[in-house]
């Protein structure tokens, strides 16, 4: 069986209902190819998500999965990784889920540097609720009736904030380059720490102008660095439309050091029932 045939075995029987042309298809495809390439055993693989179009992802995979609540993919993923450190844990979701509702969790997940991979499919819009501005929406986007004059607010900068918060692997992918993304996902899973990938993933329905991203995205013009200052300087000069591995360091991954010291029964005794 070649990797393409093996990749198909990581897909579930549930067919994606994403809009035709959605960038999230490419992420699903890249993920399954990465799993096949790394020959991951499905019983040792869990994909955890929050809420939103892209958070449907676990349903489309045949691994273990948890389609959780809005913005809470990372706490669930972190809990799972602490309880079952031998698992490969992937958290996924969209820009609203990850940077607004789950923004605080994002900061602390970066800081803790648990050995997780977090993939955010960023389309700069809340698609599932029919097209409202998200944290990464540009201030002058006026196509939503809720923000007819634009948000007037500077967008969240995912890669720069991940760097400031202490993430040890920061990359940006593009759904128009599924092969490049597969490679990034492989590197992210192999990285021993918190690996964050922001994927530029166009929404053809609410942001049809993003179809032009394929002409705008270029390769990140620098080799990856392990120097945060250098990465910060590069990101400050970056227009947010480049893809590739930006920063990778070997900060020690956080893990539970002490063994369990109490039984479930002892925990229950602490609570008034």
């Amino acid at each position, binding site marked *: 069986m*070649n990797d393409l045939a093996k990749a198909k075995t990581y897909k579930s029987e549930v*067919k994606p*209902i994403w809009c035709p*042309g959605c960038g999230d298809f490419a992420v699903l495809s890249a993920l399954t190819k990465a799993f096949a390439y790394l020959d991951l055993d499905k019983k040792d693989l869990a994909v955890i998500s929050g809420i939103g179009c892209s958070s449907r992802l676990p349903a489309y995979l045949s691994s273990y999965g948890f389609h959780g609540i809005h913005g809470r993919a990372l706490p669930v993923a972190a809990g799972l990784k602490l309880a079952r450190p031998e698992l490969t844990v992937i958290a996924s979701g969209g820009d609203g889920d990850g940077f607004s509702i789950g923004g605080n969790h994002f900061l602390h997940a970066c800081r803790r540097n648990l050995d997780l991979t977090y993939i955010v499919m960023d389309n700069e819009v809340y698609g599932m609720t029919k097209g409202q501005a998200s944290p990464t929406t540009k201030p002058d986007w006026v196509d*939503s*009736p809720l923000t007819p004059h634009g948000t007037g607010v500077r967008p969240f900068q995912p890669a720069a904030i991940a760097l400031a918060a202490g993430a040890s692997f920061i990359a940006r992918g593009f759904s128009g380059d599924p*092969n490049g993304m597969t490679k990034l996902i492989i590197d992210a899973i192999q990285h021993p720490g918190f690996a964050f990938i922001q994927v530029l993933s166009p929404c053809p329905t609410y942001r049809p102008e993003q179809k032009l991203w394929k002409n705008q995205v270029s390769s990140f013009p620098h080799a990856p660095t392990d120097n945060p200052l250098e990465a910060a300087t590069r990101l400050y000069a970056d227009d947010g439309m480049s893809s590739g591995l930006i920063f990778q360091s070997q900060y020690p991954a956080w893990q539970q050091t002490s063994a369990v010291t109490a039984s479930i029964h002892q925990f229950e005794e602490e609570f008034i029932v």
Partner: protein
Amino acid sequence: MIKPESIEDMETFLALSYLLETESSDRYEELADNMQAHHDPEIAHLFRKLSHYGEQHASEIMEHADGLVLPAVASWEFEWQNPEGPETTPFEAIGFHMTADEVLHIALANEKRGRDFYAHIAEKSPTESIRKLAAEFSAEETEHVQLLEQWIADIAHKISARPEDLDPPNIPE
């Protein structure tokens, strides 16, 4: 990254050719599933038909591999002209309410890229047997191009405007 035209051994060339066809066929299948999910059985059926042809081409390639052990190759290891293999439809190429004509034009563009890909290898490969087989594959792709052009011509009289979407997804509530 490996330049496809620099491949020197037949095993890797066949593995690459097989990959190219299966990647293309798998993608048609994914697009068919997507159109099916959005209640467009006619276009889903067309994508499945294209996927089936891709599978047939992949099987034909494997006939050349009889007795050989093909290496494992991954699409991202190669330097393509496009982000993926030449015959793979980009996910972003499709949309709601496509016409058969639009689908066939996508397939035609894929086959033309496949034809040109093999023609380039037929010209540049350092190995004579690969040059010869690549020329054969390019001729086959040329036939596929002609078939698709004929298919497009045959349905030309049936082409209607893009169907009206009575329930568009992007009307804000």
